[in-house]
């Protein structure tokens, strides 16, 4: 066989093509990406709000005006400062709850719980769902049949009811809630990753990798995963928001975070008797929950937009 050859073959054609491209050579990929990130309103708003909530959670011991557990019945139900009431005081900017605990401190500490549960449950369900989905989509056939059966079984179980049953059987704690949610909400990961993998698997570059002798492991990790990462990011954010809302619902029903821990869902539950008298008790954690879920979803959508390969040029 001929050894290393340095003569360009068909070189003329190549040089004609390439000389046309000279002027179009773009700035570095990094600066382009930065430009797209900062030009994306949804991504910036979502990221900004999420960052604020994240800082609230991390810095809770530093920035809280009081102790979230400290009860003082003589100072209960102080309204927030914007209320037209002589009781409102800057000592408790968001007022106090039924037991006289500082509401702003409880809100800050509550952010920790929401973020922790959302992130951990998303991680667990993401690992389970992505593994099942990618294996089913890649191997097809019998593997696909088995995974489909597992997905269908999971989809036939009502999440809240199963979570309620398990939590009431095992008892409630943060760890239990995280595991129960993580083991329950992987279905969307599995369904989306399965169909995304099926699509990518049919493309020629996977066949090319196979005929290069790549192992299945290498093909899945370095050919398929990078091409379904977009969908994965979007599902991960949706599921994180989903887990946070589910946790709030469980706490509202008394089966999530246990008093006196400050969870946003629990705060809403504790205040539900006051909805007609001191609506801000429900509004404040409700708005916080809404802002968190919205910002996570905005962030996910934005990340998909700026990393999609069709936006690459």
């Amino acid at each position, binding site marked *: *066989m001929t050894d290393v050859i340095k003569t360009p*073959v068909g070189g003329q054609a190549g040089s004609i093509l390439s000389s046309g491209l000279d002027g179009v050579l773009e700035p570095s990929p990094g600066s382009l990406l930065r430009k797209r990130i900062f030009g994306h309103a949804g991504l910036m708003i979502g990221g900004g709000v999420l960052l604020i909530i994240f800082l609230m959670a991390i810095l809770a011991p530093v920035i809280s005006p009081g102790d979230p557990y400290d009860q003082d019945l003589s100072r209960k139900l102080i309204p927030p400062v914007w209320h037209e009431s002589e009781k409102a005081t800057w000592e408790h900017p968001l007022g106090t709850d039924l037991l006289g605990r500082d509401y702003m401190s409880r809100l800050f500490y509550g952010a920790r719980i929401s973020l922790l549960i959302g992130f951990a449950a998303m991680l667990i369900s993401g690992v389970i769902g992505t593994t099942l989905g990618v294996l089913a989509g890649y191997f097809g056939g019998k593997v696909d049949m088995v995974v489909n059966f597992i997905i269908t079984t999971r989809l036939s179980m009502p999440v809240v009811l199963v979570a309620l049953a398990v939590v009431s059987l095992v008892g409630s704690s943060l760890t239990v809630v995280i595991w129960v949610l993580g083991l329950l909400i992987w279905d969307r990961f599995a369904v989306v990753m399965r169909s995304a993998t099926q699509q990518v698997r049919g493309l020629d*570059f996977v*066949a090319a990798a196979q005929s290069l002798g790549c192992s299945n492991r290498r093909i899945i990790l*370095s050919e398929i995963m990078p091409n379904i990462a977009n969908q994965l990011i979007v599902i991960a954010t949706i599921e994180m928001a989903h887990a946070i809302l589910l946790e709030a619902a469980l706490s509202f029903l008394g089966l999530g975070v246990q008093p006196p821990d400050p969870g946003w869902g629990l705060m809403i539950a504790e205040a539900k008797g006051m909805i007609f008298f001191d609506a801000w008790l429900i509004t404040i954690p409700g708005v916080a929950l809404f802002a968190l879920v919205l910002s996570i979803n905005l962030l996910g959508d934005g990340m998909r937009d700026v990393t999609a*390969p069709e936006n690459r040029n």
Partner: protein
Amino acid sequence: MSEIVLEARDISRSFMISQGFMRAKRPLHAVNGVNLKLHRGEVLALVGESGCGKTTLAKMLLGLLPPSAGSLELDGKPLASLSHLEVARIVQPIFQDPYSSLNPRKSIGSIITLPLQVQGDKDPASWRQRAEEIMELVGLPRRVYNNFPSQLSGGQRQRVAIARALINRPRVVICDEPTSALDVSVQSQILNLLQDLRQELGLTYLMISHNLAVVEHMATRIAVMYLGRIVEEGEAEAVYNSPRHPYTEALLGSVLTPDPSLGVPDTHLGAAYPNPLDMPSGCSFHPRCAKMMPQCAQQAPRPIPTESGHVECSLYKENEAKMRMTS
């Protein structure tokens, strides 16, 4: 004849097709007893309609799909005894669509050096240099090394695919419609590149194509496939100038001319492609054949040797085929 680099002996591949709920599955014979020999340095063109089994055959030759019957030999060794990596060193594909054959998430450099990575090449420091050598050989500018496929034109992408296939210097390249997804202006560049590379690197091509003009330009031998069988095979010139099989004749007659006043050529084939699940009895071509004889519906023709290959048609008897050749 020079050495044989790839030989298929009587290979078949069938797929089980579901007929619907609670109905038994039926086999679809995509490739049905194909014999092929690829001699070193030749360009064998495989032509035939869509659905005749060309791509299935190519997949088997690449080792991506095990044949359900028959045996394959690469370089004199049975394909079943070779590992995926060994097969990959001998035979490589070039795909039709350069937009889907390159991973959009990888840079050109990592696409071209992937074969070196996979083969566990001992000397990673030399990868860049080897990639640049092969890029130069296929006419790609060096500076696209760090670009992504979406930044290249169709023709450049196909050059990247060719570079990836050739960096480990395979002996056989299976080109599945290598130009049909490209602009007409780029097609000839890629074909000329493939021709030049064949001479420089001593490659052997199996070229799958619908485009008979491409086949005429490239091929040294032609194999015509119909419903999973090779119905005629021979030297390119012989097949072009005196096609034996009525199907080959019809295919050659189907080439469109640039002159619109001539209209669309009539191939006498009719529009109906037979259902491959329910193959016609006897000669599988008989329902569409212009020269059908009464026995065609009952008796499947046997391969009859011609001067440079074979033909499967009841029109010819063992000696007759040779006689026509001399006349």
